């Protein structure tokens, strides 16, 4: 009989299975073998055998390695230490096969051989290291030009969509900004000293392929200010080729600002830049020419407190090296967070606690209509400017 009857169930069906991958590695690797045994036990007992937390790391860095200790290490020595190493991924996930092979070689030699490309942070993740091998692994990775990513209460490894490298929708160079931000904030990345984690994510257009709006404290999402570019002939071709323009395009525009009477007309001031029409007719429609990005803040997954989506902070910013404007905003925000943040509170929660208006005032960003969800409908709201006027009269 199989030693892992419960895990075997997870190999059935048409999908790839992580169990098959662990089994493959377990044949030649003691750590993977330990993991397999411990995991079967966990399924049997319906509980995890990873202890909570644990601090491990490499010299000079306060992050990048996440400690995993087993509470059944004596039974499964391979799993006793099973630390996770986050390797800073490349912008846009471009690797040469050779570079990946070298990482895998290092990992076969020193770890479990199991990897996770990519973790939800974006990092290239190596699973299952012993505490004693960490320095060697770090040295070998460095020699090949790699660096560790972030963990803990600091800047997490920034991540971006493929952007202009492959995608015509991109409104700014996500790869360049990602790289610049990564290099600029090395100290904040490797030596965490914030109240809690801080994630930067960069998407080139509102399709938001890295889900920055839902997953990052500081989301930079490409957008444009002028009119959507239209190629009427190409649009007509879509219709000729059978596109049901009423159902699939016009009716799905969230603000109903697009019309068709043999040619397309868009009421651009009403367009919310949702990308729907452009995605339906990529050959006929393009983002405008006056391109930049929108900064949104405060998204997070439901840890400690509930999930949040990001809110607009700066509706439009141009992004050109050396990116001084955006770095200036980041600096102000961190100063504010440093003063006002409490432990294990994300910036989004901090902003909710102090109020978006107060936050924007503190970081010196002018409040614009785009940051307001809806106009006021309650006449009993206290407005500072009216108060001042009355004060003057009286």
């Amino acid at each position, binding site marked *: 009989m199989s030693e892992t009857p419960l895990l075997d169930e997870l190999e059935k069906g048409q999908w790839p299975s992580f169990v098959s991958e662990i089994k493959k590695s377990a044949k030649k690797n003691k750590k993977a073998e330990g993991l397999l045994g411990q995991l079967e036990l966990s399924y049997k007992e319906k509980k995890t055998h990873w202890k*909570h*937390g*644990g*601090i*491990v*790391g*490499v*010299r*000079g*860095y*306060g992050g990048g390695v*996440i*400690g995993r*200790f087993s509470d059944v290490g004596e039974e499964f020595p391979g799993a006793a230490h099973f630390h*996770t190493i986050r390797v800073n991924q490349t912008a846009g996930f471009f690797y040469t096969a050779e570079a990946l092979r070298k990482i895998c070689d290092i990992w076969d030699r020193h770890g479990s051989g199991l990897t996770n490309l990519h973790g939800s942070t974006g990092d290239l993740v190596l699973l299952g290291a012993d505490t004693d091998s960490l320095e060697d692994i770090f040295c070998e990775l460095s020699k090949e030009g790699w660096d560790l990513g972030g*963990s*803990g*209460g600091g800047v997490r490894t920034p991540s971006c969509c493929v952007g202009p490298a492959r995608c015509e929708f991109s409104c700014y160079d996500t790869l360049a900004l990602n790289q610049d931000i990564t290099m600029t904030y090395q*100290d904040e990345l490797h*030596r*965490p*000293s*914030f*109240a*809690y*984690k801080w994630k930067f994510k960069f998407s080139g257009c509102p399709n938001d392929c890295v889900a920055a709006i839902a997953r990052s404290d500081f989301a930079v999402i490409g957008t444009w200010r002028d009119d959507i570019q239209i190629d009427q002939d190409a649009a007509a071709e879509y219709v000729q080729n059978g596109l049901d323009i009423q159902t699939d395009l016009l009716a799905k525009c969230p603000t109903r600002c697009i019309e068709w009477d043999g040619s397309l007309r868009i009421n651009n001031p009403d367009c919310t830049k949702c990308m729907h029409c452009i995605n339906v007719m990529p050959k006929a429609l393009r983002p405008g020419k006056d391109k930049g990005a929108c900064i949104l803040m405060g998204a997070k997954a439901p*840890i400690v407190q509930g999930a949040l989506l990001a809110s607009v902070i700066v509706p439009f910013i141009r992004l050109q090296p050396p990116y001084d404007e955006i770095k200036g905003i980041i600096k102000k925000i961190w100063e504010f967070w*440093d003063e006002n943040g409490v*432990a*294990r509170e994300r910036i989004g929660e901090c902003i909710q606690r102090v109020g978006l208006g107060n936050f924007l005032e503190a970081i010196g960003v002018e409040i614009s209509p785009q940051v307001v969800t809806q106009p006021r409908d309650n006449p009993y709201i206290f407005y500072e400017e009216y108060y001042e006027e009355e004060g003057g009269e009286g």
Partner: protein
Amino acid sequence: MPNFEFGGKSYDVDEEGYLQNPEDWNKEMAEEIAKTEGVEMTEKHWEVVNFLKDYYKEYQIAPMIKILIKEMAKMFGPEKGNNKYLYELYPSGPAKQACKIAGLPKPTGCV
């Protein structure tokens, strides 16, 4: 439970070497724990450890790094109140090493 042998006695520590009972701590032992971390305790190192101990005594919790940095800056000036300086003293990170040497419980950071 793993032990830390010192002065002919053995003390409870967790598997990462953090003292389980803060009362066990004394200065000589701290020097010894520092050695296991590859840290040679100088006056500068003690400034950090003493601050951590005082803070812990008052609040029963290890300070956030940003507070450690700020307080160090207040007490000893900006050249000692920054991340870089702290990592020079404690290369594996002040949270990990200095807390361990100070006999504080393991900081429960997030991943």
